[in-house]
């Protein structure tokens, strides 16, 4: 059996899970209006691992897209655990594991649209079908009323980005679940097959998936 610790910190949900192939063993998560990861993440990790750190097979991290601060804390924390315990790292797309969890908890839709709020009318989103195939890769999208009208069938839009799209997107059969949060529970659904296929990454050189290029201003002459 392989035991995996999953860490989800890409949004305001600070979430940690322990799982094996047969499912979730333990889940601890807390969310609030502000980021609490710097205070709470390691406490949750400690509670979830208990005395089983020596039994772990891998650490899984939700790689983004998401909040830079959230990803920063989760990534450095998972690198530290991998280094201390000599474990491989599993990097999962935040949007992909959100869709995996939604398919399990809310089956029956033709399409799943996880959405993470990226301020103003922008969201980080990707499109998945009912079997988990990726139809549209992760993108930072400026949402328009007709953005998803090409999807014919039932659509579940989920995540904090769904909240601001509800009542705005003009799709005929779209449901919204704005209270859905990315969770380490969803990661547990994908992590074990990634480990079985040995598609782990090197924790030394792993970087989060920021999605957007960071642009800083160049200096101007002062004289």
């Amino acid at each position, binding site marked *: 059996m392989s035991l995996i610790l999953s860490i989800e910190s890409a949004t305001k949900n600070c979430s940690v899970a322990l799982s094996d192939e047969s499912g979730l063993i333990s889940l601890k998560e807390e969310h609030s209006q502000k980021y609490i990861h710097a205070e709470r993440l390691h406490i949750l990790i400690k509670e979830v691992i208990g005395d089983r750190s020596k039994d772990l097979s891998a650490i899984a991290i939700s790689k983004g897209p998401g909040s830079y601060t959230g990803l*920063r804390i989760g990534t450095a924390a998972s690198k530290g655990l991998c280094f201390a315990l000599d474990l491989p790292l599993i990097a999962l797309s935040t949007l992909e594991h959100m869709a995996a969890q939604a398919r399990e908890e809310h089956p029956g839709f033709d399409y799943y649209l996880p959405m993470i709020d990226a301020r103003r009318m922008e969201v980080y989103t990707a499109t998945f079908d009912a079997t988990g195939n990726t139809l549209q890769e992760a993108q930072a999208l400026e949402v328009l009323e007709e953005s998803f009208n090409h999807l014919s069938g039932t659509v579940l839009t989920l995540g904090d980005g769904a909240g601001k799209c509800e009542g705005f997107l003009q799709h005929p059969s779209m449901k919204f679940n704005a209270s859905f949060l990315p969770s380490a529970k969803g990661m547990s659904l994908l992590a074990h097959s990634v480990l079985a296929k040995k598609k782990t990454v090197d924790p030394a050189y792993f970087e989060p998936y920021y999605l957007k290029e960071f642009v800083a201003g160049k*200096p101007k002459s002062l004289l």
Partner: protein
Amino acid sequence: MQPLILAIESSCDDTSAAVLRGNEVMSNVVANQEVHELYGGVVPELASREHQKHILPVVNAALIKAGVNKNKLDAIAYTRGPGLLGSLLVGASFAKSLALALDIPLLEVHHMHAHILAHFIDDGNAPLPELPMLCLTVSGGHTQLVVVRETTQMEVIGETIDDAAGEAFDKIAKIMGLPYPGGPLIDKHAKDGDPLRFKFSHPKTDGLNFSFSGLKTAVLYFLRDAVKEEPDFVNENIADICASVQYTIVSILLNRLKQAAEQQQISTLALAGGVSANSELRQRFQELGDENSWKTFIPDFSYCTDNAAMIGIAGLQLFLAEKYGELGNAPTARWAF
């Protein structure tokens, strides 16, 4: 057996890790970030991302260099603040994971305490300072006069009310069009210049405090006017400008240090922080000590700029006092001395 401490520093733009056995440094690895040169100053988001790339290889290198197995460590020390929050978060989150997974204490170090305590690293070839000691800490973010009564009992008796001395060096260098970080370049150009050619007035501050923003503005206006008359003024006079600016900053610093030493009647003086790598400051500090028969301590170049060895020696004091940190404590960008 002396405790074995792994220390991590990530408060600004250098990622560093060190291993100490007691107060001896077994390794001190520093990865600098060159990405900021393009932008004329440290870009916080980019600094955080660079730390994320460097943290694991740097810690690994420090352990390998020291020949220490991570399972033998007694504690993990890290910089909790002050500094850039995003940068601090990377070191803090990594350090907490190590302490948690290795099941050893976490030590939360104050970056400015650490600069001063670097003087208590035993490198085997110089006597350690006696206490009480008066320390002038000068860096890109801080300018402080600190009385050190014990290694765990320090008091700030004077500090800058605006820019730090190192910030003044870098900002003035930027005004002159020198690449970032410009402070060391001012030192380099000043070697060939006349320090008395251009006069800049000293600030009027209360007590033992400092101020450098007025000097920066004075240099800006002075150069703007000069460039209007003579477009190539900066290039043609760079050595004299640099020498005059440096002379002014060092004079402001040492006047206050002398005043503080007399007032506190302390005869052991020390420099700390990145600007203590400045050659004129080192030389005139030494001369000030010699004139007054004060004992002076100047850190080794490798302990002037940000480094994890100093975090380790500060962590050792916490470890010996059993002042352990907590997983629930977040790093803090501003942290009272």
